[in-house]
């Protein structure tokens, strides 16, 4: 599987069906077959910003889209899909907020790791950082 490609800006729309105002990933690359790395710059007009902070549902949505984009990335790299797959969150588990919420202009960096996959459901673990500080960890099941 070719894991050299980096999706960003307009290209990210090839991996996700979400559009503004709820497009919550602006870059995606692969670390290896099972691990993806997603990013998001928090702009002041982000719908999940409140009083200058990027709120918890925004973090969870960003993690879900990071996972969903990585599933599409793999499918496109493997040649089993041409476009973004439609993914829904089946379950959020063990979400933990670590310290302060991110602020406007922060850049989120999220690692998603595929844990297991049964039929159309894929289980991920995720860790979101701002600079080197972990802001959230989560386990998620995505139904694609």
């Amino acid at each position, binding site marked *: 599987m070719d894991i050299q490609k980096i999706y960003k800006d307009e290209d990210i729309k090839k991996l996700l*069906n*979400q*559009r*503004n*105002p*709820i*497009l919550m990933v602006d870059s995606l690359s692969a670390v290896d077959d099972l691990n993806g790395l997603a990013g998001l710059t928090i702009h002041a007009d982000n*719908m*999940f910003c*409140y009083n200058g902070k990027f*709120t*918890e*549902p*925004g973090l*969870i*949505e960003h993690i*879900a889209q990071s996972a969903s984009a990585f599933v599409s990335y793999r499918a496109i790299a493997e040649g089993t899909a041409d476009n973004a797959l*439609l993914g*829904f*969150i*089946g*379950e*959020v*588990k*063990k*979400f*933990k*907020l670590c310290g302060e*919420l991110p602020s406007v202009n922060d850049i989120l960096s999220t690692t998603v790791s595929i844990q297991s996959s049964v039929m159309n459901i894929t289980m991920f673990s995720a860790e979101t950082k701002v600079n080197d500080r972990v802001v959230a960890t*989560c386990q998620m099941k995505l139904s694609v």
Partner: protein
Amino acid sequence: MKMLEGSYFDVLSTSNDNGTYSFDIRLHSNHKVYDGHFPGNPVSPGVCSIEMIRECSEMIFSKPLTISAVSQCRFITVLTPVSYDKAVITITPTVTGDSIKVVASITDGADTTFVTYKGEYVA
């Protein structure tokens, strides 16, 4: 925090039965989030359900709450503002020191469950 209340959903009525709070809500199909979730196919984002449960919990405690943990949240039936413009949010909180644990669900008020939720807030 009123990120969604008043724009994404309205609370029509509330009740409290022995520490279990119920909120009858209405979803607005014209909220801007549906422009992007998904174009031409409005589906209520799961995280907006998590946020509605938080905002209703804040109404119970009359103070801002931070979502410190979600131990488990399951999305059982797809919620759309087209098929269901009304729903019922049920919340049972347990307070321990600074932390508030809640068990919550979103249903159609009858047989259909959209979301089940177990989480923790800090004030």
